[in-house]
């Protein structure tokens, strides 16, 4: 298993006045054998980051490293991706067996019989009977398709698997099955994973580390417990407040943001705000606290702050003992 590292990665689309920076100088590490959950809203650039890692989108700046070495610009990468929509990620004209077989690297298993056995092994790995290899995707339910997609990703013998919103297109009753499978696979294969979702509750369930992305930048990153129990960035707090929790809350409690920012619109990624990109919506920012003009002028960095929170007013790392060192995450908390 390997460590995937993004170093100051920037992805830009278009040029001239219509240019848009979808990912803006992101540094993020997926430690070996760990699941990193990447959370953010639509337009935050999380899917673009994933597509850049697997080579579907060219990188405009920075480097993507696997175990310290840059990824090959072309050809097969030791990274695999599982997509959001299982209805479009499998070729409807191909049996699921041949879809999976296609992803097995050439020379990995000898002969046609070897490939067949490998497909059977992979199908069983994702809890599907091996004799389903001859089925077409149309014969499978959404959850089963998503499991086939997982098997196809594993067929490529990846060092790192990237899962992009893999449960959000599934019915509620099926999401649990897929999440259980992801956890089991991670435990049994010690896979490194970048797990992308907009749902904090889902990310909490599967991740060791959580990274929060807002408008192309990582605003907070740390061990899952630390980010969830003690969020440092106001945006993370807002996401947490919006996440599912058991029990009822009075309607008035639904929206607890101060009046100045309660009805703020999400920022336009084509014209990101100056300084801290969250400041027009921030309950701790200049719209609520008049003396905090610094948020408008300067982009905060997470260096030296707890959970690397990119906020001018987040706690300093020095205030606490249990802080990840700057530049990278600490070791696996369970080891």
């Amino acid at each position, binding site marked *: 298993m390997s460590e995937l590292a993004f170093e100051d990665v920037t992805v830009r689309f278009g040029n001239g006045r219509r240019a848009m920076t979808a990912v803006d100088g992101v540094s993020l590490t997926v430690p070996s054998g760990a699941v990193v959950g990447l959370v953010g809203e639509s337009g935050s650039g999380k899917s673009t980051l994933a597509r850049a890692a697997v080579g579907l989108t060219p990188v405009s700046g920075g480097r993507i490293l696997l175990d310290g070495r840059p990824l090959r610009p072309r050809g097969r990468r030791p990274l695999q991706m599982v997509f959001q929509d299982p209805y479009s990620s499998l070729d409807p004209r191909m049996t699921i067996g041949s879809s999976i077989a296609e992803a097995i690297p050439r020379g990995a298993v000898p002969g046609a019989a070897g490939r067949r056995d490998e497909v059977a092994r992979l199908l069983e790995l994702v809890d599907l009977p091996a004799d389903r290899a001859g089925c077409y995707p149309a014969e499978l339910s959404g959850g089963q398709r998503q499991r086939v997609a997982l098997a196809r990703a594993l067929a490529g013998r990846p060092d790192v698997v990237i899962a992009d919103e893999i449960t959000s297109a599934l019915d509620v009753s099926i999401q649990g099955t897929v999440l259980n499978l992801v956890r089991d696979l991670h435990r049994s294969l010690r896979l490194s994973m970048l797990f992308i979702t907009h*749902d904090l509750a889902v990310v909490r*369930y599967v991740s060791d580390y959580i990274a929060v992305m807002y408008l192309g930048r990582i605003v907070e990153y740390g061990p899952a417990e630390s980010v969830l129990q003690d969020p440092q960035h106001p945006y993370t707090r807002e996401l947490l407040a919006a996440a599912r929790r058991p029990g*009822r809350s009075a309607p008035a409690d639904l929206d607890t943001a101060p009046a100045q920012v309660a009805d703020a619109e999400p920022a336009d990624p084509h014209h990101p705000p100056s300084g801290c990109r969250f400041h027009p919506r921030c309950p701790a920012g200049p719209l609520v606290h008049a003396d905090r003009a610094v948020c408008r002028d300067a982009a905060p960095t997470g260096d030296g702050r707890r959970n690397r929170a990119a906020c001018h007013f987040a706690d300093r790392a020095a205030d606490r003992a249990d802080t990840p060192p700057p530049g990278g995450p600490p070791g696996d908390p369970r080891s």
Partner: protein
Amino acid sequence: MTSRARWAGVLRTPVGAAAAVLLGAVLLLAVLAPLLWGGRADEVDTARILQPASAQHWAGTDNLGRDIFFRVLVATRTSVQLALLATALGVAVGLLLGTAPLLLGPRLGRLVTAAVNIAVAFPGLLLALSFAVIFGAGASGAVPAIGLAIAPGFARLTQTLSATVAGRDFVAAARIAGVGRFRVLLRHVLPNIAEPLLVNATMAAGGSLLAFAGLSFLGLGVQAPGYDWGRLLGEGLNGIYLNPAAALVPGVAVVLAGLAFNLVGEAAAKAVGPRTPTGTVRGDSFEDGPPAPVDRTGQSEAVLVVEDLKVSFGTVTPVRGVGFTLRRGEAVGIVGESGSGKSLTALAVAQLIEQPGRVAARRLDFLGDDLLRTPPRARPRLLGTSLAMVFQDPTTSFNPVQRIGRQLAEVAEQHLGDRRGPALARAVDRLRAVRIPGAARRARQFPHEFSGGMRQRAMIGMGLMGEPKLIIADEPTTALDVTVQRQVLALLAAVRAADDVAMLLISHDIGVVEQVCDRVLVMYAGRIVEDLPAAQLRDGARHPYTRALLGAVPDLATDRDQPLVVIPGRPADPAAPPPGCAFAPRCPLADDHCVRADPALLDDGLGGRVACWHAGELPEPVRAGAAVLSAATEGEGR
């Protein structure tokens, strides 16, 4: 349905059968006619030149005394052969040009695309004529001429289709797996666009048959002594006043053969294209199943009373007897998976089910008026002013070319009879009421200038143009980001509290419903399986499906060391509801009785209703789930 069955189905339609017979006859004639009648067609008889039609020569004779009818039959081979050859050339060149952008990469690909786009702009026949002049008169010139004239259109079609397929995730997945461009094209792209291309090629063959006849007619196609239909037509036309049959017969041949190809193409397009389900409503479809029990609690204050509501499309009945009552100011949520009938229930209440859907109910009362018996003319007024509807996708619920303010004002003009000025003022006021910053300015903007959350607010604002007594919100927050979701839910709650408006909230997310609603209806396979107060959801749910739904989705208190509750199997198929309980195949409590008999939705005496033979029982697997839940509650206290 498999594609083979679909093609067989097309053959059974009148158009498909006629087309197949016609094309078969043309092809058979092309093969057999020269063998059978080749001699007679070339037989020169100087004694009988330019004779009119007679019993001996059905279409008369030409200037060498040859029988025109047999010449037309024999010419079938040349005509069809050349047309097919030209089509094959055109399709081949078109495929090459159309798939080139995929193979060459973006930069070179753009050049090819631009070239094809320019070529498409020229009329096909004009291209064919100019190519025919360049390549010289004769069949060897006309084939590339017509082929090249077909190519641009075909290339463009290939390009569009392959670009669509290439954008799908499975192609991305293949590329990640290291599959080369050429293999991606062969294995993934071409098989997925083959059907529409084939249909188009068939139509193109019909077109090129006509084009060839045209070129030959003009003397640019087949040269003497060879002959095809176009040439025969040209020759026959010289003596049309003496012998009309000499021109008519080749003309009819061209028309019939062209029709054969085009009809086959049409029929095939029908097989390939999207189909709408057809079928007749069975007379008994509204009678089966146990009658839904009547909920008579507090109907005096009821805003909406629904009893035994059924929605059917052909033979499929996705909503099978739903009954509930909504009182003033009450918020009721309907949860269920896709296909459970929750959205159709909402649409049926709002009278928005379109043909061929059918709505039936024992009772569907809105504000005391029976909607099913209200004359259709009175309905829009009642619904337009007293009912507000919020849809899932705010991008499609506004007219994109009209300003937001205008669209809101229209409601007031239509339903309240307001004049333009006051209507617009009210629109701005309503936008302000749904907390849209800068309402007056935003009223002048177009929908695309609004973000998703703002558009959803404007939609709610539109509902508030009248004086709604009921808001139906169908997945109002599903398309929105989580933080915006919260704002919209809070807004709905505020609107409800301000005017004592009842709300029907449809959602797949039991968490959202739990937070916002007073009562929760859980739907499965077109039935309500449980109806209970939202406050009792966590520990008072008695239906195994409700419990499983709660455990299947993690929340912020889920125990990370426990697996999530799994509901085995797949959601019930609305087209084939089982005779017993629809949830039985996936239910840990199910026994023989459940499979045989459908449980009725019965009052449980605790303020809820539940449809389960084993309501409230705990099997082994669910007990594990219950452990998760209790651990979750402890976690919350932490």
